């Protein structure tokens, strides 16, 4: 029979405490330590069961996942082993990410690679099949309502009420975030002015061009002054002039300490804007780093070459 005394409990508690201290100083190894803590706790529970009639004084206190993932509070988005399956199809296959506050992070990948599915899980539109993620320190499975208060989402296809005027659309979504009327008007004015939609803001969106709809789509995503912004292909369908203007606009957001997660097909857009990029293919994260790091690592002249080398090789290898 396994015997255990109070000293064992104290030793075990000390071990856990040491691990936690270690975790605080080694943020990069957090995910691995989390698994070790899990295993340790399981072992404690197993040992407790082996001693009949004895109640352990050892309390296994689980930290909240966000505390363990992000002890220094520097991360805006943390993704751990995220999986999404639709029937037999695995759209996202075990993605791990740590996006820092104030970072402009690009998510690249061919069509159907799993970029939008990943974002949809982060904003609560899809439930992960496996794994977990936190946005702004909140767990996507438990604290979705809190997440929705601090994010702005710009969907791939412009989602606006066509029978409403541009301004009415923006005011509607501002009201859904329960914004103060004056602040809402002020921000709407500022965005319409900056985007060049001031004149059109009092016209029904039905008459907008594709580019104007995309700009309105972006304004709606930003109206609540979100801390974390998800931009899903925000510049598709914009002419080069408006696209450049939107790049400047997105760049300005970064200056305001916003965390931006950008998915795009335009590799030059990612190269110009992003601090780091992650390349997803077949639902897996196959490259991660700053554009310069990736170019150096893959001996490429630009990010597009990196993209083609990595994703092209996977096609040739039949992955």
């Amino acid at each position, binding site marked *: 029979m396994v015997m255990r005394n109070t000293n064992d409990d104290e030793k075990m508690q000390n071990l856990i405490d040491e691990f936690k201290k270690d975790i605080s100083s080694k943020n990069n190894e957090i995910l691995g330590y989390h698994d070790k803590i899990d295993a340790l706790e399981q072992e404690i529970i197993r040992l407790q069961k082996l001693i009949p009639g004895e109640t352990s004084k050892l309390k296994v206190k689980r930290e909240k996942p966000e505390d363990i993932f992000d002890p220094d509070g520097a991360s805006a988005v943390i993704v751990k082993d995220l999986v999404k399956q639709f029937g037999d199809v695995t759209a996202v296959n075990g993605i791990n990410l740590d996006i820092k506050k104030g970072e402009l992070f690009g998510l690249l990948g061919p069509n159907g690679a799993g970029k939008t599915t990943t974002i949809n899980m982060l904003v*609560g539109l899809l439930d992960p099949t496996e794994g977990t993620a936190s946005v702004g320190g909140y767990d996507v499975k438990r604290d979705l*309502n809190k997440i929705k208060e601090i994010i702005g989402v710009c969907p791939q*296809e412009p989602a*606006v009420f066509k029978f409403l005027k541009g301004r009415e659309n923006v005011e*509607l979504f501002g009201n859904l975030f329960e914004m103060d009327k004056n602040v809402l008007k002020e921000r709407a004015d500022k965005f319409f002015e900056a985007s060049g939609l001031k004149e059109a803001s009092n016209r029904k969106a039905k008459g907008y061009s594709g580019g104007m709809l995309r700009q309105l789509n972006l304004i709606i995503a930003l109206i609540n002054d979100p801390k974390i912004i998800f931009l899903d292909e925000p510049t598709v369908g914009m002419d080069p002039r408006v696209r450049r203007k939107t790049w400047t606009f997105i760049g300005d957001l970064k200056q305001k300490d916003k965390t931006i997660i950008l998915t795009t097909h335009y590799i030059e857009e990612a190269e110009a804007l992003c601090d780091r990029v992650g390349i997803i293919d077949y639902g897996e994260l196959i490259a991660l780093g700053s554009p310069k790091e990736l170019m150096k690592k893959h001996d490429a002249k630009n990010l597009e070459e990196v993209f083609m080398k990595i994703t092209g090789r996977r096609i040739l290898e039949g992955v």
Partner: protein
Amino acid sequence: MMQRVLALVKMELLKLIREPANLFLNMLFPAILTLVFGLAFGGLGGGDSSLFDTMAPGLFAYACIFLIMTVAMSFTDDRESGLLKRINVTPTTSTQFIGSHIITNMFIAVFQLAIVFLLSLLMGFRPNVDVLGVIMAFVFMLFLSLCSVGLGLITATIAKSAGAASGISFIFILPQMFFGTFMPLTEATRVIAAFLPSYYVTEAITTIFNGVSPFAVEILMQLGIIALMSIIIVILGIFLFKKYGKV
């Protein structure tokens, strides 16, 4: 919370005014129907009352039944254009969203009843009713609009597009049109009618407009039935749409 609901109600009402199909179906159609029926049947029938007098209460319910189609089309249209997803990533809860639809459609039902009632009076309809009776008729219509929202949600759950929704909604519209409004019922169709919300509303309004007290036992029983039906249908609609509606 109220800021969100009011913003959504305002948006839905603007949709009604600015979308010609919605405006026609919800406002002009009942008005035209009342005028046509008034002209066609106003002079027919024997005794003190015309055929139109017996049909008028059914017309009130008739207009409200078509809310099923507009609600279903509105939900499927918003889903197709990604607007339900967009609203879903704001702090708006599904209760607030669906609640705003219920409030909007109750408004519409009140407008419809007012239009049909006034036009019916214009076409010679003279109900034997006091103010309390008219208020009770409005209460019945509010419950019927609630049923229509619920059935609209069920339709939107099944339908993949707004076009499909308009067709599928007739599954719920047709039986109510034929067996729950002004059409004469046989023994067999009366059995079917017992499951239709509009039947109880038409029966109750007809009775009230014939001079029976709005607080008579039979009226209150019908009110209880329609209230229960509307609650069950709305809860079922919300449950099905949330689970299978593919927001």
